[in-house]
């Protein structure tokens, strides 16, 4: 079956431009995550959706970053007034289940990653 897809694969923007990055999760997956991977670093969490609800946006670096998932499937990460420090690979991941609803559970909920979008801000 199809995996997580992201578009575009590469994006070059001039400083100050707005960009929109798209993520198509695996069909039926409830959870969707965005990560930012700077050059030579590991991915860092940005935000999390459960269906259309954005439940955690604690990793968004500034109010220039905005994410949405209006119908609970496709998600868009928007960056306004891009800066050079926004240059990175943006990874999207989806998983079948939702966050644990409460308490601790030993259930395993694998995240499947897309190929990422490499954003270069000049």
């Amino acid at each position, binding site marked *: 079956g199809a995996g997580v897809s992201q578009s575009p694969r590469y994006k070059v923007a001039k400083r100050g431009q707005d960009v929109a990055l798209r993520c198509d999760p695996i069909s039926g997956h409830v959870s969707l995550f965005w990560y930012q991977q700077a050059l030579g*670093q*590991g*991915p860092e969490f940005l935000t999390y959706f459960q269906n259309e609800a954005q439940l955690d946006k604690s990793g968004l670096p500034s109010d220039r970053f905005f994410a949405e998932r209006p119908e609970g499937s496709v998600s868009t990460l928007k960056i306004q007034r891009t800066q050079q420090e926004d240059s990175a*690979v943006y990874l999207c991941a989806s*998983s079948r289940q939702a966050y644990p609803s409460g308490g601790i559970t030993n259930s395993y909920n694998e995240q499947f990653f897309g*190929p990422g979008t490499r954003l270069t801000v000049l």
Partner: protein
Amino acid sequence: AQTVTQSQPEMSVQEAETVTLSCTYDTSESDYYLFWYKQPPSRQMILVIRQEAYKQQNATENRFSVNFQKAAKSFSLKISDSQLGDAAMYFCAYRSNRDDKIIFGKGTRLHILP
């Protein structure tokens, strides 16, 4: 806050030999998952192996195995019979049992020498 540390930015191994990648982590929690992910130049993050903290037995997946030392908060990856296709960035990662947010280390670039 939880952290994951990989102290080896790069490693090389001869084809068919065995290599071990190191990882340490810090957490105050007792229930969590640990992972090793592989990221080839295509950037696709691929799960190699996972370990549940409540399991004492080390996880194994074909040529990949881990040495999980919970008290020492150490989680190393051993790759046996290294193949050219194993060349990639390898990330050690942590996930609390309380949520699905994954915390990654900085990665180790593995080179396979023919």
